[in-house]
Every structure is written in C-alpha cells, then in structure tokens.
C-alpha cells in the first residue's frame, strides 16, 4: 500500500471516530444536563405530540427563521436541502449494490451541488453586506462557509473539469468500511476534496455545527406547555427558607 493510501485510511478512521464519539458525548451531555424550570417559548403546543409537530416544521422548513428573515431563510433552506440531497447522492460510494432510490436521484443530486453553493454564497454575502451580520461574524464563521464552498467546488471540479476514477474511490471507501483496505487514486482534486471533508468531520463536534443536534434539546422549543397540569419536578432542593 502506498503511503498516500495509508495516510488517507488513517485520516478517515480518525475523522469518523472524532465525529461519532464527539457527537455522541455531546448529545449525551445535552440529554443529561438538567432543565430546572419550564421555559417553553409560548404559544407552545400543550402536548408532546404537539411538540413533535412543532419540531417537524422547525427542522424541515425552518419555520421560525421564515418568520424572522426571508433572505436568510431562502439561502439557508436551499443550502440545507441541497446539502441533504448531496449527502444522499454520496451514498452510492458506500453501498454495493447501490440502492435503487439512490441511483434514481443521482441527476437531482448533481444539480443540488450548484444550489448548495449558491445558498452558501448568499449566506456569505450577507456577512459582508449587512452591517449587523458583519458585526457578529468571527473568522470561524467565514472559514466555515469557505470550507463548505471549497468542498462543493472541489466536488464539482471532479465531475465537470478533472474527472477522477470513481470506481477506485468507491473501492477505497468500501474497503474502509469492511476493513479490506484498497488504494486511493492520487488525483490532486480528490485529495483536496477528501481532506476538506475530513476536516469538516473533525471540527463538527467542536463548532457551531452542533446546532444540528442542539436544536433537538432546546427547552424553549421542545418542552410542552403544560406546567399547570403536570408538575415539573425540581432538580434542586430548597436551600433557604423565607424569613
């Protein structure tokens, strides 16, 4: 095995471990941290089933964001929807035989990449053009968008400019999954794409990308509004008495 293959094999195992363990620990921490008081942002659903409905529209349609700001919503929603399609399209590198619905959606996934980059570009433009958003942006906010755009562009580059040997790429990833390691093609664009993806996986549990698991734990959105009907049990004991 070439040094390159060894390096990428190790890199992806490392990145996958960091992502899975890091996210797992973070989610466990969210779940274990007590919520001492009832704080749903009202009007809120009165039942748990209602909360599931509320969260469904938050996650799939970014409902609150829609109420807040149409520009952020359109760019942000397009980016995320396209990202989802792009990720699903990538399943073909990890399944053999390729699931039929994954095969069917391939053309859609290819367009989605453009939409994703357009959405990201729109979000990035706001960071320069809107004074309020410029003010709140740190270097990491710019870098995160740059990273995602670079991943998208390097991916498109392999499709439209310098094609890589995708059969070999697939063999490499299946090899990683089944511990039967295969060589990786040495194309510069592929190297770039994969390194950036590994970086994304590694920073995921340490960055604002935690918004994805975080939103499922926000008490303001996930608590039902039923404090009078059901006593929210204290997580702390009384410490002092009234005088």
């Amino acid at each position, binding site marked *: 095995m070439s040094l390159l293959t060894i390096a990428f094999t190790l890199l992806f195992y490392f990145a996958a471990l960091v992502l899975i363990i890091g996210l797992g620990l973070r989610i466990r921490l969210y779940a274990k941290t007590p919520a001492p008081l009832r704080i749903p942002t009202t009007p809120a659903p009165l039942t748990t089933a209602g909360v599931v409905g509320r969260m469904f529209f938050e996650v799939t349609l970014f409902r*609150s964001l829609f109420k807040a700001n149409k520009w952020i919503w359109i760019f942000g929603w397009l980016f995320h929807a396209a990202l989802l399609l792009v990720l699903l399209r990538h399943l073909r590198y990890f399944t053999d035989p390729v699931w039929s619905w994954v095969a069917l959606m391939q053309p859609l996934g290819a367009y989605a990449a453009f939409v994703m980059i357009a959405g990201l570009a729109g979000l990035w433009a706001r960071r320069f053009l809107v004074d309020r958003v410029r003010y709140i942006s740190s270097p990491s906010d710019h870098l995160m968008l740059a990273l995602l755009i670079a991943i998208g562009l390097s991916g498109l580059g392999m499709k439209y400019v310098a094609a890589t040997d995708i059969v070999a790429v697939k063999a490499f990833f299946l090899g990683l999954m089944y511990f039967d390691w295969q060589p990786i093609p040495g194309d510069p664009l592929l190297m770039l794409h994969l390194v950036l993806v590994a970086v994304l996986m590694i920073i995921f549990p340490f960055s604002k990308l935690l918004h994805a698991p975080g939103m499922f734990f926000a008490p303001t959105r996930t608590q039902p509004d039923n404090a009078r009907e059901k006593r929210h049990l204290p997580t702390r004991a009384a410490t002092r008495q009234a005088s």
Partner: protein
Amino acid sequence: MADFDTPVLKPYPVIPPIEIGSMAHSKPYVAKPDIQGKIGFPGELIDNWQQVAIDKMGELVDNSRALRVFLDSCVKCGACTDKCHYYLGTSDPKNMPVARQDLFRSVYRRYYTAAGKYFPGLVGARDLDQDVLDEWYSYFHQCSQCRRCSVYCPYGIDTAEISMAAREIMDTVGVGQKYCNEIIGKAQTIGNNLGLPQPALLNTLEGLEEDIEDETGVTVRLPLDQHGADILLVTPSADFFAEPHVDGLIGYAKVFHQAGLSWTISSHASEAANFGMFIGSYDNMQVLAQRIREAALELGVKRIVFGECGHAWRVAYNFLNTLAGPFDFLDPNYPMPQHICEVTYDLLQRNALRMDKSANDDKVLTFHDSCNVARASRMGNFEGGQFVIPREVIKASCNHYYDMPSDAIQEATFCCGGGGGLLTDDLIELRVKGSLPRMEALKQAVDDHGVTHMAAICAICKSQFSKILPYYGMEMDQIVSVHQLVSDAIQLGGDH
C-alpha cells in the same frame, strides 16, 4: 427632560444602521453591601472574582440544559439581530440579541471549549477581565428578558436565559444591581416590593373600600388576611397605590364581589412580582415563591389567583409548582394558579357578570401584550389563550377596540422597554429608547383607528408607560389596566 434625545417616531419601522458603543455609558446603580448581604451575595467585588465567576459559569451551565445548548448552537445567522427593541431604539450593536449572548459566549468559549482554549482569536473567545465585566454590567442590564429574540431564532435561543445567568454570576462575585436587589430584600423580609407593612396595607385597602362605596354606593370588600376565604389573591404591590394599577385592583374586587366569591389578600405574600427571576437567582426566586405557599396554607384557601403582572404570571404559571409545590392542598377543580383574566373571562362566558360597555365609550382601546404573558406563559386551556382571553375581557368592557399592527402584538409583541428589572430612573434613557418600537406601533393605531388608550396586564408595563408616554408627546393616563375597564363597565348589585 434629560440629557438625551427622545427618538423620533417614524411612520413605518426602520432597522437602524449600527452605531458602535452608543449605549456603552448606560449602567444602573450598583447595589451597596447591605443590600447584597441581605439576599446572600458578597457586598462588593471579591478579590479572586475571576476564578469565582468562571467556576460559577461552569456550575450554571452544568445545571441548565438551556444554557448549554444555547451556548453551543448559535450559528451567527443574524435572524435575531433586528428583533430586540433595545437595538431598534439605540442602534448599539451589542443590543442585538446574538451580540449580547456573545458577551457571555466569548468567555464561556475561552474557559470551557477546546476551540476557545486553543484558538481564541478564531472563534472570538475572550479572557474574563475588568473590561469584560464592565461590559457585562452595562449590556446585561440592557436586556428586559422579553424573549422576543427566542421566537425568531431557528433554535429558539433565548437571550433572557443568558442575561439571567450573567446577572447571577455578577451577583455571586459581588456586583449587583441596586434596584432589583433592594426590592428582593424587601419582598423577602416584609412581603412586598414596596416594603408596605401589614397596617399600612390594611389602611390602603380600607381606603379603597370607602372610595368604591362613595362612587357606587355599593359596599365592596377588599379583605386582608381573612382566614377561611376561598381565594388567595396575589397581586403586584403596585396595585395597592400606583395609577392606573389601583383601578385594576378595584376591578378585581368588583368582579369577586359580583360573582359572590370569597377572597382575601395576604400580608405575608402581598407581592406577585418575583424579582428573583430577573437576577437569575433560583434561590431568591424560591424564597419568594415559598411565601405564597405559606400564605395559602396559613389562610386555608382553596384557590390561588394572580393579579395583572407579566413576569409574576410567568413565575406563577410555569415555576411556582416546581419551586414551592406540590399544591395538592388546593381545590383540584381549578387551575393552580389562575389568572384574574381567566376568572373574569369564565364569569363572562357564563353570563355571570352584567357589563355596560358604553361606560367606556369615551375611549378607543388597544391592547399591549406583555412579554412574559405572551411568550412565557399561557391563559385558558388552549394554545394562544393568553392573546384571546384579555382581549375578550376588554371587548366585553368597551365598544371600541382595535389591535396594533400584527408585527407588534401577540407573540411578536414589543416590550414596554422597562421589563426585566430595568424599571428604574437611573436607566431612563434606555427605557425611553427601548420603548420606541411599541410607541411606533401605538402611533400607528392612533393614526389608523383613533385609538386613545392602551390597556395592559402588567404592573411594570403600566408604570413604564405612565413614565415614558409623555416623552413621546402623549399623556400618562393613556395607559389603563384591563380590570380598570372591567371596573368601569361592570354593573354592581342586583341578582347574582
């Protein structure tokens, strides 16, 4: 009036460009050592304050899922940046909710996250030093904890939670706010924010009974410490003497009277407000909540009803059961607690009150949804009841009612500008500027519908509007209590 300019009301809302540092000078008076000591905090900035503050931050985050998730999740999308009335009124970018959070988050990142420990510049992490503390003191006292930002944030991030935590950390190292902490001390020792002792309270209530009798010829009682009454009324102490609050209290008394309900006020828990919430102090909030439980047990009541007060209703509705429950000694057929608007609404639904709407024909009304009722609690047994019920009570009391524009009411309501423990004269500039969005919406309703009066169900809102309406060229008595309207319209006597 003061050394700042009252903002000009624009015909339509405008998002102002940022003006860095425009409110950096705004700071409330610091609490003196005796005030701090009374409620369990150090008297002045302690020597090793940095370490204590950082440890306290860790403790708070470990005990609050909200804080933990909010501190991690913000993507700096900017959706909240134009949602805070203090930003809209002052243009200071640190009054944008996300920027306010970042004052806290930057320190949290520095000490509690890998990114902030190793790459502080990259993620905007900062050491906690005196400058940061000063900035905290200034800007965490420019948040009225109104939760408007949390409605619009894609993750429901509630800046109020972060402001509360920041204030608690500052209190823990000895830097407290005079206004809030002095009041908490009084409420904990005397029983109400004004420090009214039992005899004074009795005197006031008797005076009100005489006023009602003089005006209507009917004897309406306002009982104090009456053992065996069915209902304990817990109401903000401003209701005992401030205008227009007291007219609301008279309204509650008339409703109870006319419905034939037996009720009492307690001198031990003569305060619905719970400023412990404003400073994020669970312990202090609990001490005040316990007094209500003690009063209910002592007097042997069957129900607890709260008067018109926004944050008090939040604490009562959402927290009281947790802080001082279970209340299984009360009558389970009634919600614990109940809001006075719910009581009146139920009676109206059952046609148990006779109302002469024309009594308020001299007014054209609108309604100011108070933040803590709108976005932090509920009334009635259906989602959004907190918007419907007070409006129905108003409409049952008058003939002319119009809402303000839809982006300024209900869940989108704007704070009065004085909530969250900021209702103090040392913050008058902030209060005037922060009420700009509400004043613009009111102006719109005045221009479009000829609105003359705005009704509210919160003691803080009422005091704030009485004070700031004149700055905007309006009259202080254009703010009224909801139960003041009820009081005017309700027909006393007769069969009931």
